């Protein structure tokens, strides 16, 4: 299994043992990776709790104040997280047999590539500009989803990004960053 731990660290770590069931007995984690959602809920609950405790409530705020509704949500979140854990432990996802071994597992390589492409797009959009970063995003995602013609894709993605630049930038007046190509076009 290829793990892109940096990209989706929390999911990758917890799901990891599930994939190692070839040739030996299923471990405890098999079919129980759903616990990850309970973990996410608990993390959200913890963040909200910290926020409620640290909140700067303006003086004279009428009761029920700004912490009232969030407190209700936090209680609900922790109760649900516990229920999810109980549910997942009692009824694990059915573990797949060898014939259909891959049907229910996640393709971390493709997923990581898509994630990385979008992250790079977010980082590069303003410094490099729409045209190049959007073309790179298109190229990266089509590559991740199994395209086998990198050079053709390169041309296609540049054409696609330029079309959007023209249609939305020039046509509809959206302000897309020019980046390093600023001034050369539009």
């Amino acid at each position, binding site marked *: 299994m290829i793990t892109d731990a940096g990209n989706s660290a929390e999911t990758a770590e917890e799901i990891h043992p599930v994939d190692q069931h070839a040739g030996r007995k299923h471990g405890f984690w098999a079919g129980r990776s759903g616990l990850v959602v309970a973990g996410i809920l608990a993390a959200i609950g913890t963040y909200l709790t910290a926020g409620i405790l640290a909140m700067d409530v303006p003086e004279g705020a009428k009761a029920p104040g700004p912490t009232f509704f969030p407190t209700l949500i936090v209680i609900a979140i922790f109760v649900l997280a516990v229920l999810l854990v109980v549910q997942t432990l009692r009824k694990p996802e059915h573990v797949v047999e060898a014939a259909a071994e*891959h049907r229910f597992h996640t393709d971390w390589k493709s*997923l990581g590539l898509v994630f990385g492409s979008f992250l790079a797009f977010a980082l590069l959009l303003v410094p490099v500009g729409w045209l190049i970063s959007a073309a790179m995003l298109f190229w990266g995602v089509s590559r991740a989803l199994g395209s086998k013609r990198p050079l053709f894709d390169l041309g296609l993605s540049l054409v696609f990004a330029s079309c959007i630049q023209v249609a939305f930038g020039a046509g*509809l007046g959206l302000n897309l960053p020019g980046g390093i190509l600023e001034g050369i076009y539009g």
Partner: protein
Amino acid sequence: MESLTLLLEGFSQAFTPMNLLWVFVGAFLGTAVGVIPGLGSSMAVALLLPVTFSLDPVGAFIMFAGVYFGGLFGDSTMGILMNTPGGSTAIATTFEGHRMAKLGRAPQALATSAIGAFIGGLIATTLVVFFAPKLADIAVMFGPAEYFALAVFAFIATASVVSDSVIKGLSALAIGLALAIVGIDGISGASRFTADVPQLFDGISIIVITVGILALGEVFHVASRIHRDPKLSAIAVSGRPYLSKREFREALPAWLRGTAFGVPFGVIPVGGAEVPTFMAYGTERQLDRKRRDPQFGKGAIRGVAAPEAAGNATSGTAMGALLALGLPTSATAAIMLAAFQQYGLQPGPLLFERNADLVWALLASLFIGLVVLLILNLPFAPLWAKLLLIPKHYLYAGITVFCGLGVYATSAAVADLFIVLAIGILGFVLRRYGFPLAPIMIGVVLGPLAETSLRNAMMSSGGQVSVLVDSPVTWTLYGILAVVLAYTLWRRITTRARQDV
């Protein structure tokens, strides 16, 4: 007959060449997004939201009228031809529809579904025209306690009825509510859960959440299974979709029964059209068994007609509930609500007084949109299936770029791109473990309404909780909710018992 005059005015506004063009563009794009497997009408609205920013409100909503129904016309096409419904509302249509296609009756199945969607939408929209203003009159009597009851109704019904597991539904709802409370509190001015990041002071934009959960989450989902799932193949369609007179007569009662199932569910918030489509399908199957020559299982035309009409009827009246009550009853309606708020409009009873011209132009456009969609879908359905000739990797690469464009164009803030990425991963994880997504959207959109009305009600009563169940309207709402929950529970128990046998 005041409604008719107002509607005619709406038509005169919608019938300018420019606005007709917007309806057409909306219907076209809506169908295109709806046809793609996995992307339903809510995605169509979410992805096309940024396209409308540079339009005036009237033009934008006229375009949305086309998109709104377009997604629903499109999603059954793929279900029939490829056995992969474009959205959850097309699942019921797919059972008999794909059987018909396999038996070489694809044109008839496509025609039945397109005409069914047209009839359902037409009847429902007509009802909205006559009853939405009355609904708005009633809604004026709603105070904070009543609105809170409505929101609770929507929360619980969506979370428990739609999903297979109540805990999963409620968890999704809680995540939605948690996303909704980030930002400056409107009542007290306190900054909440923003970690002092200025970009978060206004809260997380609904567009960021929608694109993240529905669009980017779907792209991640497709990526995670791209080498796993078997390749799909479409059934070739020979000839144009048509129905003979006999087939039309056969389907007609099913269209009408389906519409009857769909209409009430537009106003009852149970998270969209899944419930009525399955109810309509189930009823037709029951009726079919009593006939001399049962058709179900052999490609029954009625099994396609009823759910399709039900789905669009639900969407039609859902628009009425949104306009008159400000209450979104499905994820699609929730995004429409966000679109209204984007233009500083608040759907609800006052909308009919303050923005009458816009409301009636929108209603008129819904009719025009339906006609355009019938023209686009009836003769050209096989052409839409050709969309699948675009290789999957380019299709989803394009969608990803549009996600980035939509989010950045809304706010011009790079921070939103990182937020949408995080939410996209969240959406992927929830999909992977079979959590329903509709409760998240309902939580995000109705969360602020629920909080404000709850706090206002309690402030005015001096902290008395009893104020929440103090009026006949609230009794009725909680009463209906109890009945809905009891029915769901009863159905779960009976189906479980039947499975055991």
